[in-house]
């Protein structure tokens, strides 16, 4: 995914820091798709992703003055997104543990597999099996196109740990698809 031009980005951040709402709006527009995407893939819930994206940008507005320009802006923003998404998941797990026991049905906001395409259903199911850090690292690498170093900064962990998360996530996905969903990769031609 293309990253915004850093020169114009810096001037936007400077203006937004001074309280320029239009500059802040431009920043939101530049990053909203990516923030929404990461939040959605981490939580698996489109409604939650929208709430998280709003929360992320509100936090961004509040704490933009503490942003130091020597850091990469998008890494900082992804870090906020991942943290807010983790907070949501923690709350959701607590909520889901109670509601599933009491109501014994699927929580609201989660679409049933039949309502989505089969492929999406398989991917969601497979990603749900991964641990949250593995899933986050995998999404940041494969969907957002961040390097391992950048992911390490976003997730606040060593580079080697990110490589390990990616290795186990890919291995798990490959094994599951080979054993359970061979039809998933039928017709996909890739040159070695």
């Amino acid at each position: 995914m293309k990253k915004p031009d850093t020169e114009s980005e810096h001037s936007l951040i400077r203006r937004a820091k001074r309280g320029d709402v239009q500059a802040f709006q431009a920043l939101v527009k530049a990053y909203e798709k990516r923030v929404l995407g990461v939040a959605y893939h981490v939580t698996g819930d489109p409604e939650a992703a929208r709430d998280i994206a709003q929360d992320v940008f509100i936090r961004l507005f509040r704490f933009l003055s503490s942003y130091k320009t020597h850091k990469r802006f998008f890494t900082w923003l992804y870090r906020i997104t991942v943290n807010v998404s983790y907070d949501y998941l923690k709350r959701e797990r607590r909520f889901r543990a109670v509601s599933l026991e009491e109501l014994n049905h699927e929580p609201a906001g989660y679409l049933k597999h039949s309502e989505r395409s089969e492929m999406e259903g398989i991917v969601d199911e497979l990603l749900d099996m991964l641990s949250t850090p593995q899933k986050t690292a995998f999404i940041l690498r494969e969907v957002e196109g961040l390097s391992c170093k950048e992911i390490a900064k976003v997730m606040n962990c060593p580079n080697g740990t990110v490589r390990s998360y990616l290795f186990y996530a890919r291995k798990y996905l490959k094994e599951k698809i080979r054993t359970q969903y061979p039809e998933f990769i039928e017709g996909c031609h890739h040159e070695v």
Partner: protein
Amino acid sequence: MKCKSIEPWLSAFAADELSIIKRWVIRFHVKRCKSCCEELSLYQKTRAQVRRVLQNKARELSQEAVWPQIVARVEIMQKSQDRRESQTVPKIWKKAIPALAGVIVLLLSLWIHHAKQAPDQEILKPVLPLVEDFYKPGVTMMTFETDDPSISIVWFFKDEDSNQKNTNGGA
């Protein structure tokens, strides 16, 4: 190289995350090993399909803009921030005011200290040149007593040009 040592690198190779040398070693092995070639193909196909599905999903989701949903909250926050900034003392003054107060206290204490010593010097000042003159050759001194015993008038005469100097001094 053996398949066992190549296998851990296959997923990273499929994601194009390896150095040129490692890539070359793996490509060299994979061309000669059918099982590793199949394994690598599986990694590549899985990656391609999962990426495609995830990117499509993200694209569908991001049709809706976030800005209209937060614009009201941002404007409220901006207004309250402006109000707070106008009410509070600017940051530079927070440091300047104590520093200025310190300087004023220092100057006051110096002035008080100076004022305590000042009277003696003020009395001595007019007397000192007189004393110097007194010991100079060619200077004559005359003293006149007044009704007030605490006051006496002292006259100095320079013999050379007969210029007069008169001064009141405490006796």
